[in-house]
C-alpha cells in the first residue's frame, strides 16, 4: 500500500478475520449440531463442541432420512442433486454454444428475431412464471422426471450471451483459415471453436453446477415423489414433514451434505468460479 501504517494493516487483518469467522460461524454450528444426539441438541444452550454422534447421524440420514419426518434416504437425494447439477450445466452449455454459433457465424432470415427471443428470456425469471410453467410440465407429463427437473432450467440467455461475446473475440481469420483448409461449419465448430471455448465452458460449468445443485422452487414443485427429491428439498421436507419436533441433528447433517459438494467446487475450482461469475454477470 501507499504508506506504511502498521495499525491500518492490523485493522485490515482484524476486520477480515472477524469477517471470515462471522461468515463461517453458521457452518461451524451446523457441523457441531450434526454430531450431537437429539437430546443434546434440544438443550439450551446446545454444546458448542462436536459430539460423538457424527457417524450415527450421517449414516442415518444417508440411508433413511429422519426418523420422524421424511424417510427418504439422503444418499439418493445426493444422486438426484448431482444429476441436476450436471445435467443443467451440460444442457445449458450445449444448447447455448450451438445457438450462439449459429447467431454469430451464420446470416439467415430471422437471425435477429431469434437473438432477441433469447435475450428477452433474461427478463422472465422462473419465479414469476412458475405456475404456468408447472402447468406446461404437467401437460407434458414431466412431473417427477429428471427431464422435468432440468430441461426448463437449461434455456438461458446468460450462457448464450457469454458464448456470443466470446465468439466475437475470436479472429475472423481463424474461421477463414478453416474454410480455406476445407473445414465446413461443424468441423470448424468442433476442431477450432470448441477447443478455444474450453475456459469459457469450464467457468460456466462451475457457476451452473452450483445453480443446478441449489435449485429450490422448481424441484419443490416438480419433484413431489420422494424418489425425486434433491438434497435441498429433502431438508425442507424434514422440517415440515411431520407432527413431531424437528430432528435438528439429522437436519444439520443433511445440510452439511447439501453444502459440501458445491462448496468444494467453488473452493477447488476457484479460478473458473471467479471467471464464470465475473463474466456471466447475470
Amino acid at each position: 500500500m501507499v504508506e506504511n501504517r502498521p495499525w491500518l494493516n492490523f485493522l485490515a487483518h482484524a476486520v477480515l478475520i472477524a469477517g471470515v469467522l462471522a461468515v463461517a460461524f453458521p457452518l461451524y454450528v451446523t457441523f457441531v449440531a450434526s454430531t450431537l444426539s437429539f437430546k443434546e441438541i434440544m438443550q439450551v444452550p446446545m454444546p458448542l463442541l462436536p459430539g460423538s454422534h457424527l457417524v450415527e447421524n450421517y449414516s442415518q440420514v444417508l440411508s433413511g432420512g429422519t426418523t420422524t419426518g421424511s424417510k427418504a434416504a439422503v444418499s439418493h437425494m445426493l444422486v438426484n442433486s448431482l444429476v441436476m447439477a450436471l445435467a443443467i450445466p451440460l444442457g445449458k452449455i450445449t444448447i447455448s454454444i450451438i445457438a450462439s454459433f449459429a447467431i454469430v457465424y451464420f446470416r439467415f432470415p430471422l437471425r435477429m428475431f431469434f437473438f432477441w427471443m433469447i435475450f428477452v428470456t433474461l427478463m422472465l425469471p422462473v419465479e414469476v412464471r412458475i405456475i404456468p410453467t408447472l402447468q406446461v410440465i404437467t401437460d407434458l407429463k414431466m412431473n417427477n422426471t429428471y427431464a422435468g427437473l432440468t430441461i426448463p432450467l437449461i434455456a438461458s440467455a446468460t450462457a448464450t450471451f457469454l458464448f456470443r461475446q466470446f465468439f466475437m473475440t475470436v479472429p475472423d481469420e481463424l474461421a477463414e483459415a478453416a474454410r480455406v483448409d476445407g473445414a465446413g461449419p461443424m468441423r470448424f465448430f468442433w476442431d477450432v471453436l470448441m477447443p478455444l471455448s474450453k475456459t469459457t465452458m469450464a467457468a460456466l460449468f462451475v457457476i451452473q453446477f452450483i445453480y443446478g445443485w441449489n435449485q429450490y422452487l422448481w424441484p419443490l414443485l416438480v419433484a413431489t415423489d420422494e424418489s425425486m427429491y434433491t438434497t435441498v428439498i429433502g431438508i425442507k421436507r424434514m422440517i415440515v414433514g411431520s407432527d413431531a419436533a424437528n430432528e435438528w441433528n439429522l437436519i444439520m447433517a443433511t445440510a452439511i451434505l447439501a453444502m459440501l459438494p458445491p462448496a468444494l467446487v467453488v473452493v477447488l475450482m476457484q479460478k473458473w468460479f471467479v471467471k464464470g461469475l465475473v463474466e456471466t454477470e447475470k
Partner: protein
Amino acid sequence: MKIKNLAIAWLTFGLLSANAHAQTEIQWWHSMGGALGEALNGLANKFNAGQKDYKIVPTFKGSYPESMTAAIAAFRAGNAPHLLQVFEVGTATMMAAKGAIVPVAKVMGDAKEPFEPKAYLPTVTGYYSDLKGNMLSFPFNSSTVMFYINKDAFKKAGLDPNKAPRTWKELIAAAEKLKASGQQCTYTTSWPSWMHIENFSAWHNVPIGTRQNGMGGFDAQFSINSPLHVRHIAMLGDMSKKGLFTYAGRTNQGDAKFSSGECAMFSGSAGAQAGIKKAASFDWSINFIPYHDDVKGAPQNSIIGGASIWIMGGKKPEEYKGVAKFMAFLSQPEIQMEWHTSTGYVPITRASYDLTRKSGFYDKNPGADMPVRQLTNKAPTENSKGLRFGNFVQGRTVIEEELEAVFAGKKDAKTALDEAVKRGNEILRQFEAANK
C-alpha cells in the same frame, strides 16, 4: 456406451416389472411421515397380504398441503392417485371438485361393500358428509386439540399437578404462579387458528361462520369477530404482553416447546402425545381444553382435525372395486383399534372405541381416551359439527396473520378479527365464484 447399456437395463427392468403386475395396483398418496407412516404401511401390508387381487401402494407426499398440491397437479396431468389423504381444511375444496372425486358412499354402494356412516362418531360423520348425510370421504386419521401440562413444573410452582386448569381463569392463575416460580414460558399453543378459533368456537357452541359453519353452502360468511371471540383473543394478547403466553408459530412448533420443558402448559394435537412421550423428561398429563365458565353451554364438544381419504375420479371400475374392498378393510373395528392404539389418533367408530375400552387399553394408558371423550362430550350442534369453508388453506393463513398481529401487540383483537372476517369473506366469495 455405458449410457446405452444403462438404458437397455432400464428398459428390460421396466418390461419385467410390467409383466409382474398381475394385481390391480391402487395408488394411495398420504402425508404420514415417520412412525405414523410406518403404521400406515402396516395397514397396507396387512391388506395386501390378506388377498391377492389388489395391491395398495402407499406413497408419502410430504405435508398435507404438499400432497394436496401434488394431487391437484397430478389430476390436471391426468395421473392422479386412486386415494388421497386430505387434511380437514381441504375438505371444501375437494367437495367442490365434483368431477375430480367420487363420494365414498357411491363407491361402496357400487361395489356392494358394507358401509354404515352411522357407525362413526357424529363429529366425524358431520365433518365429512354433505347435508343429506352422504359420506363424501372416508374418515381416516382424526385427532382433536388437547391441553397438556407439565406436572413437574406444576409441583415446582406449588400447584397441584393432578388438577390441570379447567377454565381460562384457572389457566391464567396457574400461569402467574408458574411464572413466579421462574418458568420462562407458561403457556403455548400449536395450530393457533385450529385451537383458538375453530375448536374454541365449537367448545363454546358459537358459530365460526354462517350457513352451519359453511356446511350449508358456499355463500357462508365468517363470524369469528363475535364479542366472545374478541374477548378470548384479547385475553391471549394480554397474556402475551404479560409473558404468560408464548406464541410458537402457525403449525406444530409448540409441541417442541412443551416436550423440551420450556413451556409448562400447551394446547396441541392429540397426535402430539407420541412425540412428547419420546422427548419429554418430565411427568405430564393430557386434559380437556380450557373454557370460559361464564359462557352458557360451554364446554360443548371439540371438533376434529386430521385427515380423511378421498377417492379420486376417472378410474376403472375394477380399481374402484379394490378401493371399496380396502375401505371395508379399514372399517373393521379391529383395524381401527390397531390404528388408534398405535398412532394416538382418535378411534372414529363407536365399535372400535368400545373394543379398545374392552381391551383394557385405556386402563393401561390413562388419558388415552381423553380425546374421544372430549369429542363426544355432548351431542354436536350446528356450531360444533365441524366446518367447511372454501379455500380454507388461505382462510387459515389470513386468520393466523391477524392473530399474530394481536399477539405481537400490533393490533387490538377487535380490529384484527374484523379484518380477518373481511379478508376471509373475500376468499370465500372468490371460491364461491370459482365454483358456481
